[in-house]
């Protein structure tokens, strides 16, 4: 059974909608800016990729504010029984901040991801099965895979996947503590890369079965989920976990890695994570393939990162055009044959790989295909 992304939308620091994201990447200008939100805190960086034009009500989380606007066009349009999967790292984490800063411990319970899940159900009028999936920065990629699995299994005809993570003092301070933040916009796969930039994003995708041969939608062909089982925050430097995930995705799809047209990489711009990915890619394919990372443009959007880059991969497949890696100046020698700072016109790009990794050593690879060129 063929599972496709029938509809989708996204909000990133480039703005609202996939066109804004696509055009932002093609402009090769970053949407990462200095922010004064945490100016007094003395963190390692003041760089962030923040969704513009967001109106947040008092005592409302940024995550919910993003989702209310992004999901508005879906209100009343879905079968109320449509299953819902929410992918998030930690839900509405501001409630933990408010609980502690205002000595209101009762507020902390509202940070739990299932509370946000309930709010989305209420917003959309959904009454069907609803699930939260969290798997660090691979959350939305694995949620997409679970949704596709449910449709293939015959458990659902359509599944709505929603993802969101916002920039908060909680998350910003944590990454600063781990010395992960770059003091300039992130430069994935660059020889001089020195860390990630945090970003925020929200996205949704409506998956459904569709075996129509003339369909233009992007298909979810296969996926693989693995764990490094090596380190809590650092990747396996031998890339065994991601290599197995890629192999599993290809095996499920009945394709070989050599057939892949291009790769939407996780590309955080941290030294070891980028190196690990390059090792996995070079082990999987005999010849270099064009790769790109969106994180120099929109930062690392945590749970949302996987779905965001998959939506970009869909646009890239439909146009046969691989976007540039924003922020790339001098490629890391290991990346030189793979990564580009200008668009790569492939003409045809029928098969794409998207990879995600995260804390705890999680890896997800998703093989995408089927988007016809326009």
């Amino acid at each position, binding site marked *: 059974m063929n599972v496709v992304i029938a509809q989708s939308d996204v909000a990133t620091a480039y703005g609202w909608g996939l066109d804004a994201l696509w055009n932002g990447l093609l402009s090769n200008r970053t949407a990462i800016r200095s922010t004064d939100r945490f100016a*007094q*805190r*003395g*963190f390692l960086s003041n760089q962030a990729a923040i969704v513009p034009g967001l109106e947040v009500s008092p005592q409302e989380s940024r995550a919910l504010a993003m989702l209310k606007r992004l999901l508005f066009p879906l209100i009343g349009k879905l079968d109320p029984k449509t299953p819902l999967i929410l992918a998030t*790292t*930690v*839900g509405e*984490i501001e409630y*933990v*901040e408010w*609980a*502690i*800063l205002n000595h209101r411990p009762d507020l*902390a*319970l509202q*940070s*739990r*991801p*299932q509370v946000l*899940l309930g709010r989305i159900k209420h917003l959309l009028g959904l009454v069907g*099965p*609803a*699930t*939260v*999936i*969290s*798997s*660090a920065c691979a*959350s939305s990629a*694995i949620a997409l895979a679970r949704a596709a*699995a449910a449709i*293939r*299994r015959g458990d659902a005809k359509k599944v709505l996947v929603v993802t969101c993570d916002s920039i908060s*003092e*909680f998350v910003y*301070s*944590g990454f*600063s*503590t*781990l010395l992960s933040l770059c003091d300039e916009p992130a430069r994935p796969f660059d020889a001089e890369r020195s860390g990630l930039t945090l970003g925020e994003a929200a996205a949704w995708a409506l998956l459904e079965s569709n075996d129509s041969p003339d369909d233009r939608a992007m298909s979810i062909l296969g996926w*693989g*989920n*693995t*764990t*490094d*089982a*090596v*380190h*809590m*925050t650092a990747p396996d430097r031998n890339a065994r*976990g991601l290599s*197995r995930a890629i192999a*599993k995705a290809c095996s*499920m799809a009945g394709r070989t890695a050599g057939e892949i047209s291009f790769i939407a990489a996780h590309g955080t711009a941290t030294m070891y994570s980028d190196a690990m990915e390059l090792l996995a890619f070079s082990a999987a394919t005999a010849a270099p393939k064009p790769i790109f990372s969106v994180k120099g443009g929109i930062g690392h959007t945590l749970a949302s990162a996987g779905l965001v880059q998959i939506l970009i991969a869909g646009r890239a497949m439909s146009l046969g055009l691989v976007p540039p890696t924003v922020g790339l100046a001098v490629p890391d020698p290991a990346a030189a044959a793979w990564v580009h700072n200008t668009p790569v016109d492939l003409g045809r790009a029928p098969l794409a790989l998207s990879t995600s990794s995260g*804390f*705890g*050593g*999680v890896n997800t690879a998703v093989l995408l295909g089927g988007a016809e060129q326009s």
Partner: protein
Amino acid sequence: MIRAVSWFCADHHGVFVPGGRSWQKPSPKLSVAADILALVGRPVNYYPRMTTEARHCLCAASMALAATPWRASGNPEIGLLCGGSDGCLAANQEYFRDYVASGRSLGRGNLFIYTLPTSVLGEVAIVLSLAGPCLFIHDETRPLSALARHAREFVVDGEANAMLALWSDTSAAVCLAVDGGGDDSAWLSKELSPLQWAGEFQGLVQSRAPA
């Protein structure tokens, strides 16, 4: 199919194997590294930094895994799933409270790394060398049977050979060892906390023990 059920709480721990050898004992103090080593049977490198919940989960997962034939049958790819109504709320509060108390400029990395619902699973995966899928699932239907169903789906879908499904909070952890075959999780459909489930399983083992 559920191969084994294990639990660990402050008072007792044990394993229930449907149709097999089940046991339960008083719990050792997990503040003593030697006690956790005896239970897990492997070195636990980052033991001092692990939260109480992580220690409970590690013990429960170790016992469940040891009660299965999986490792003996060629080290199949085993995944990890966890659920729980609070996710990592306690760890989130601990991190941010400490950060605020320290002047809001620098947090503690050893606390921050536990602020994901899958953080505990990361530790378990490292110690037990589990390389399959690893994720937190909160299903609105809540009961342990839903977690068992999700775990079984990973096997049926061909994403793992077997899954360990953990249901935990700061007071107790229970673990289901699930592989292919039929769905036999209906007996886990009560809405109970991890500590209540631990009590249920203890009672089950005691009732089946020879007089």
